[in-house]
């Protein structure tokens, strides 16, 4: 058994840390989060240069061909600096959906462009009902003859749709779209839709976490041709679930990286901040809280690392592990970020200090791909409670 990272992975970590410290310090994060795009073409091009936009795509599609365990290392580093921009949406949602569900032609056409930084994509899955299961998909795709479809409905909480060139839209096709079968996993189809398609309207939403951009996407009779269908009509949920599982592990890793950084910032501060003539870290009221934070962070990492391995290896308990990880990490990051503010006192509550970037990222991440309550219920189902 080796529950650790390889030399190559440690090298990737060191490279990513150095790159992000230079290219994405908090001054840059603050500049970017104030823009609607959340990134710049120059920064995006540098991510492409590093190979990170195609990290887990096969080499045949312009990627680097690495696995989820490698991805975890990179995501931890991105979370460490609260990197803004459409990485998660482009690579792990839009990109992976293309990889999992797309035809050879679709993959050949789009994945190299995503890896090269020329095309951005996202996944339009969730709706105002705010569900992460198949039942949440109520947008419809009506067949209009010759394999063409017309898409209607409203998608909500769509990450980075405003800067995406392509949207992978989940909608119901065929008889499952209405009547008794509505809501089941059968009947969910995926469509590749250009953002500029007529009838598709994207509205950027003001969000608490400004480093994560969320959109409303209205589909008012968007007509798409036959080759817009990604995979088999009505069979889109299975590949989508695989996309969501991997994106969830990646998100968990990003959250672990953020939580680790909050712990470090708080520990550093507790060593230098003097109160009643002593560093506050000498007081058990502070020291014990910091120890609790460490326990949360270490357990969050442990389950995330295991899950990454399980997903890479298609282990029988991979689905269970994903839900265990998201439940654990959602609570851990929120609590650690909250404790970080508490132990910093007043300075931690200022806009000037970086802690709120982490606190808000913890909150947005908590609700992305289902919160802890959602995933605990999934665990309960999967262990046959």
């Amino acid at each position, binding site marked *: *058994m*080796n*529950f*650790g*990272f*390889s030399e190559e992975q440690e090298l990737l970590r060191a490279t990513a840390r150095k790159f992000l410290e230079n290219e994405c310090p908090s001054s840059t994060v603050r500049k970017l989060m104030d823009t609607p795009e959340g990134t710049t073409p120059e920064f995006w091009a540098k991510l492409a240069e590093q190979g990170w936009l195609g990290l887990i795509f096969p080499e045949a599609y312009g990627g680097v061909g690495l696995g989820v*365990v490698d991805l975890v290392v990179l995501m931890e580093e991105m979370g460490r600096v609260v990197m803004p921009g459409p990485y998660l949406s482009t690579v792990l949602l839009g990109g992976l959906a293309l990889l999992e569900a797309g035809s050879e032609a679709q993959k050949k056409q789009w994945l190299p462009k995503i890896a090269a930084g020329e095309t951005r994509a996202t996944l339009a899955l969730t709706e105002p009902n705010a569900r992460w299961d198949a039942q949440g998909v109520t947008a419809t795709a009506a067949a209009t003859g010759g394999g063409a479809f017309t898409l209607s409905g409203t998608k909500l909480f769509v990450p980075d749709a405003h800067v995406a060139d392509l949207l992978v839209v989940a909608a119901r096709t065929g008889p499952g779209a209405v009547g008794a079968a509505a809501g089941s996993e059968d009947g969910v189809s995926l469509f590749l839709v250009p953002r500029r398609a007529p009838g598709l309207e994207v509205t950027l939403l003001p969000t608490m976490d400004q480093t994560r951009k969320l959109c409303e996407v209205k589909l008012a009779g968007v007509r798409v041709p036959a080759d817009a269908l990604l995979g088999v009509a009505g069979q889109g949920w299975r590949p989508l679930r695989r996309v969501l599982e991997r994106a969830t592990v990646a998100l968990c890793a990003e959250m672990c990286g953020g939580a680790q950084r909050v*712990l470090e910032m708080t*520990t550093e501060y*507790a*060593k230098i901040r003097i109160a009643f003539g*002593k*560093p506050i*870290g*000498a*007081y*058990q009221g*502070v*020291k*014990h809280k*910091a*120890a*609790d934070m*460490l*326990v949360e962070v*270490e*357990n*969050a*990492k*442990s*389950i995330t*690392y*295991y899950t*990454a*391995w399980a997903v890479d*290896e298609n282990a029988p308990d991979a689905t269970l*592990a994903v839900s*265990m990880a998201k*439940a*654990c990490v959602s609570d851990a990051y929120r609590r650690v970020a909250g404790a970080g503010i508490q132990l910093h006192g007043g300075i931690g509550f200022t806009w000037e200090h970086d802690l709120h970037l982490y606190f808000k990222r913890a909150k947005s991440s908590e609700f992305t791909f289902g919160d802890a*309550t959602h995933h*605990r*219920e999934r*665990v*309960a189902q999967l*262990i046959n*409670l």
Partner: protein
Amino acid sequence: MELTPTPEQRSFRDEVRAWLRGNMPRQWTARLAASSDVPRAEAYDLLRDWQRRLHAAGFIGLTWPREYGGRGLTFMEEMILAEEMALAKAPPVLNILGIGMAGPTIIAYGTEEQKKRYLPKILSADEIWCQGYSEPNAGSDLASLQTRAVRDGREYVVDGQKVWTSLAHTSDWMMLLARTDPDAPRHKGITYFLLDMHLPGVTVKPLRQITGDAEFNEVFFDGVRVHDSQVLGGVNNGWAVGMTTLMYERLALGFGLQMRLRIALDGLIEMARRAEKAGHAVTKDPVLRQKIAQLWIDTECLKYTGARAITRLLKGEMPGPEASTGKMGWVETHQRLQELAMEIQGPYAQLVKGSDWAVEDGLWQHAFLRSRANSIEGGTTEIQKNIIGERVLGLPKG
């Protein structure tokens, strides 16, 4: 990262599993549900016999050197054994302090004679060990211990008192910390002795606990004469030796704790399936489902945190931060599990052994009460947090 077992590890797991299938003590089954507990008095004979049979089969002291009766294997096999014992709901081993603490410390500091004399009998359960650290005025602040050992020729004369000494009433030997130089700074004047509990002047008085049982004790020393060959690791070097014991305690006992947590959780889920709340099975109650699922998640997290620590050990590194979090995490999770067991039982939680209405003969009530000791024994949670804060996070001492 490679978590797939090797063919050797798989065959070791098969070996353990096959053995357990044919050798589980029949009398143990009634005690299953609450068996996350430490051995109770009436189970000693059964547990001693159980350890002997495990030992005869080669499953005790896996990581110990072969020349002292061990198998020279790694912590990987130790982990596999613990997992399989949990799956089989096997009883714990009786001489847990000997195997988990005294033995590894003797391996680290003992003379050849000491190793040959003590190690095999620890493994075979012929000699049971207890730990003489805490005193009435030295608990978390262990270095203030006052039990004296005064040199007299080739012997030391021991006077003083220990307290909260688990298993002392059935033990043959004690890991004793005593002050040999009262003038030295408090950490420097302590010596580690291997003390024969049957010597004249040793008196053991059981203490009744909140469970009603008496598994721990006061131990009094009145002019007990200990030969100087019983010093372990050098005179006035006892603090370093004693801390080694504690490191092994957290490390080795971790496997046992993980096993007991898993057994208790499986037992809790079985109980929850049978119990009803407001007309439906407890496992269908949305709030209790959340709590049970959380315990499942926490148990798995602790398992993987332990696996990360083992990876470091296998690579020959010292345990990293994840090792020091193990005990704290286990304590918190186990106490929450026992609280939930009471919540699931509702008003029946009030009934103990002796009532026909008691759930599972009151075993959970005992385990629930016993679990309060978890955050005190083996270093209180507050001390663990000091250790993590100071040694792992580098925060200043208070």
